[in-house]
């Protein structure tokens, strides 16, 4: 019930970071009614809606209101992300539900990359027009200067975390404002070693394009002062230490009140540039945004026509939003069922007990969506026997993911086979090899034994299957490796039940099944810190055998390169995340190609092949993902749609689109 249970900031930080990309789509849902923005009109507009408060619950304190700090690491918690969702907009974002790449404050798609020589150096350049009439909450125009300023600040100060991802110094040279509404982006054409490079989708479209834009007028003096603070590190500290006061925002909400430990309140910005805009999606794939306020009708991905799959008006329809801060999930859910709040942000996934409670309340709706995450078991492929592909396949074959997820965990988890979750439909490859799926226990054991023997493993005594074919009547004994030596004791390190019952349960069952086929595995259930520390220790190559952890994923699946490219092994790159030391030239070439891929279709093709490759070679055995459940009170609030990858929580609660009744 404590803070501990509800939230481990470590995992949240990672969720937050990964969701930062997802959050971009939440920014899709925002606009402004065509009203005079005088003080009187503003009051008149907010007066009747005075009661329309979006009452939500969160169960940990946001860290900071400083957006630089939130996006730059130290304050990067998922809770901060929820409350700051209405503060910053981006050039591009994802469309509703379909996750198409669409302009947000950009007036159109960028021009194609072209090689250009400026002042004797060669660059990849592209130009982006910015929409006219986009205003900060204080009524000033949002211009190309603001974008250039934000990029410049991130580059000059060397900001980390998400800033470093958005503003990738390996590729990005600079961003210039040609005039108040025209941007020009300069990418480097060669890398540090002089090899030619292309800024691919992950660098430009899904990288820089998704960077939040902060107001130059407010921040320039503060950044200037920070730059005078001495060492780079102190400069960053100085910037992050600033507590915003009257900072203009651009995504629908402005700060109103933060009572530490109790609640956080934002007010709707009545001049939000998308307020009143109507978003229409057609079944033929076309997408139309009609923004009367800006006098703009934009159509993307085909011609409007035929049946509509979605249509709604952007808000904010709420006059303000209150995030009540609870100490833990129990208290938050209790408050929800009690009627104190109408929606609870729940990044942990709602377990069955909470679902029962919510259902019993009667006036609450539960929506279930796939989540964009993977929980997996990894192998240290540097060490025998984990270096043998058939061994890994045999391990995968005996793991009955359906049994654990459906019977034991009662549907709290969903089985997974590909490294891209099914919910991420555009990028998910459904036709990969699903080793062991649908087999009975006996068939699994048989398959595993066959695989092991085909690779040269031998038994003193093979495992015996009981008469009904579902029970291992005697465990395999004396499993020997192809070179004749005994298979050594293997440690499977996994989170303890205290940290995550789902992964602990999987670990215990995997231990049992592997022991059945004679593999001497011992599950070591440890604290999260202990596992992470082991993965990041210098001796990871020697000490690690097998481990179970999870990743929150991005929509664009370039993470496969981060996890499995040999250049990301810790021995090749300090802090690399390919802990298992997976190294395969063919895979490396494919994965690296993804980074410089500039077309969506080409990227998809590569992503599909990467998934096929991984499903067969199995440096990870993907185990499961969790369904994302959201619950809200339909008698009080209404969302334009609720079926979306990552759920309502993944969209930060759709603050700009939610209707308050």
């Amino acid at each position, binding site marked *: 019930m404590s803070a501990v249970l509800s939230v481990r900031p470590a995992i949240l930080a990672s969720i937050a970071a990964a969701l930062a990309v997802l959050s971009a789509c939440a920014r899709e849902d925002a606009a402004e009614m065509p009203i005079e923005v005088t003080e009187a009109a503003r009051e008149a507009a907010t007066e009747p809606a005075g009661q329309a408060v979006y009452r939500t619950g969160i169960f940990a304190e946001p860290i900071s209101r400083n957006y630089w700090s939130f996006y730059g690491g130290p304050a990067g918690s998922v809770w901060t992300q929820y409350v700051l969702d209405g503060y910053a907009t981006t050039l591009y974002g994802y469309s509703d539900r379909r996750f198409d790449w669409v302009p947000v404050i950009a007036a159109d798609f960028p021009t194609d990359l072209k090689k250009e020589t400026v002042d004797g150096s060669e660059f990849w350049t592209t130009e982006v027009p910015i929409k006219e009439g986009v205003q900060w909450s204080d009524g000033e125009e949002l211009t190309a200067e603001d974008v250039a300023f934000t990029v410049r600040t991130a580059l000059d100060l060397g900001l980390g975390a998400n800033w470093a991802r958005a503003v990738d110094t390996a590729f990005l040279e600079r961003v210039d404002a040609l005039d108040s509404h025209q941007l020009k982006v300069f990418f480097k054409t060669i890398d540090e070693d002089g090899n030619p490079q292309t800024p691919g989708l992950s660098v430009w479209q899904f990288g820089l394009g998704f960077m939040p834009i902060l107001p130059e007028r407010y921040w320039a003096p503060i950044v200037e002062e920070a730059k005078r603070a001495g060492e780079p590190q102190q400069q960053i500290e100085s910037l992050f230490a600033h507590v915003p006061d009257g900072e203009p925002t651009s995504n629908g909400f402005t700060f109103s009140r933060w009572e530490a430990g109790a609640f956080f309140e934002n007010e709707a910005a009545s001049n939000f540039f998308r307020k009143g805009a109507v978003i229409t999606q057609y079944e033929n794939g076309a997408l139309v945004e009609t923004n009367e306020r800006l006098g703009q009708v934009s159509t993307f991905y085909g011609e409007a026509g035929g049946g509509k799959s979605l249509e709604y008006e952007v808000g904010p329809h709420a006059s303000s939003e209150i995030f009540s801060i609870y100490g833990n*999930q*129990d208290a938050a859910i209790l408050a929800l069922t009690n009627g104190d709040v109408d929606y609870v942000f729940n990044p942990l996934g709602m*377990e069955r*007990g909470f679902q029962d409670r919510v259902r019993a309340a009667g006036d609450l709706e539960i929506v279930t969506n796939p989540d964009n995450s993977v929980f997996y078991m990894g192998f240290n492929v540097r060490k025998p026997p984990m270096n043998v592909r058939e061994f890994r396949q045999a391990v995968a074959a005996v793991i009955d993911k359906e049994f654990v997820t459906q019977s*034991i965990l009662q549907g709290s988890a969903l089985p997974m086979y590909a490294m891209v979750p099914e919910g991420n439909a555009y990028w998910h490859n459904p036709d990969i090899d699903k080793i062991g799926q649908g087999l009975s226990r006996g068939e699994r054991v048989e398959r595993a034994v066959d695989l092991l023997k085909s690779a040269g493993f031998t038994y003193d005594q093979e495992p015996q299957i009981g008469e009904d074919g579902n029970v291992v009547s005697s465990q395999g004994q004396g499993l020997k490796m192809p070179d004749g030596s005994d298979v050594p004791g293997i440690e499977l390190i996994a989170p303890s039940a*205290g940290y995550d019952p789902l992964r602990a*349960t999987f670990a215990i069952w995997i231990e049992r099944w592997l022991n059945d086929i004679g593999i001497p595995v011992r599950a070591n259930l*440890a604290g999260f810190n*202990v596992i992470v520390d082991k993965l990041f220790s210098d001796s990871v190559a020697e000490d690690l055998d097998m481990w179970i952890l999870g990743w929150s994923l991005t929509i664009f699946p370039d993470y496969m390169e981060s996890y499995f490219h040999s250049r990301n092994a810790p021995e090749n790159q300090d802090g690399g995340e390919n802990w298992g030391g997976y190294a395969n030239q063919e895979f490396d070439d494919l994965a690296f190609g993804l980074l410089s891929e500039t077309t969506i279709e080409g990227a998809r093709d590569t992503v599909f092949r990467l998934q096929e490759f991984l499903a067969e070679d199995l440096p990870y055995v993907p185990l499961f993902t969790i369904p994302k459940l959201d619950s809200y009170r339909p008698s009080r609030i209404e969302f334009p749609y609720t079926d979306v990858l990552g759920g309502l929580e993944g969209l930060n609660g759709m603050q700009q689109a939610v209707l308050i009744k």
Partner: protein
Amino acid sequence: MDVQRAPRSVDHSLWRTRLGLAADRLRENWAAFVRARVGVIGLAVIIFYALLAAAHPVLMSTVWDESIYDPVVGYSFDETRQPAPPSLRHPLGTDPLGRDILSQLMFSARSEFMLGLLAAVVTVCIGTMVGAAAAYFGGIVDTILMRLADIMIMMPGISVLIVLSALIGVEHLELGLIIGVLSGFGGTGVVLKSQALSVVVKPYIQAARVAGGGPLHIILVHVVPNLLPLSFLYMMFTVTSAIFSEAVLSFLGLLDIRMSWGLMIHTTESAGYLTQVTEAWWLIFPASLSITLLCSSFYLVGRSLDEVVNPRLRRA
């Protein structure tokens, strides 16, 4: 009272006399203990849980199928929905992961006892040595040990344990040691020192010294035995705090263990059943009540022993 009963016959050897005296004292103390009444209730509860703990391995090897009733990896295939309410097969129902609650409860009872025993033994070993040494040597040894005790006493116990278990991997063994050390060098040591002070001034200690007994010898043979009754009392309180701490830390999800009462509540909590008091009572009450009952029983026994050991509280 029959304190000074004479040996029953002359041919009884000395050890028999001693044994008789000891038995008499025990009987007398038992009478005082029983008179305090609350201790007996506590003792009954402790025995009940000890029986539960002892019965678990027996049940597992006879009537309970391991694949169903194993407290950690068992799974009840008969129930379609987990957690299942109590039934004939599962007298206390199953947990959210389909495991038998009664089996978990009994299995955990054993580890609670082991944990309590470990913490208590460590406390007593350290406490008596610290108390005896401080009293016997006095001076700088006393000062150092007592300042150390001050620090230990001032350590915010729960907070220390939370920090430690969040930062390093803590299981039952480490927990027992930490609690034992905290208590032994801290409160227990101080109390035993004041008791030891009244022992070291006794003439026979002086005599032993004159006879050339080394400090270690004197402390172990003459001082420590006199501290044992009182330290036994403090063992009870240590057991209470060990079980309580384990429950709280497991509940917070900070211990790397596979099963315990606290972890049962944690499982209930993380599955979201903690506030469903009437709907899922079997997930909440057995473990919580067990923790409470066992903790308070050891405490009550300790209090009653206090009545026996502490002369000022004895009835006239």
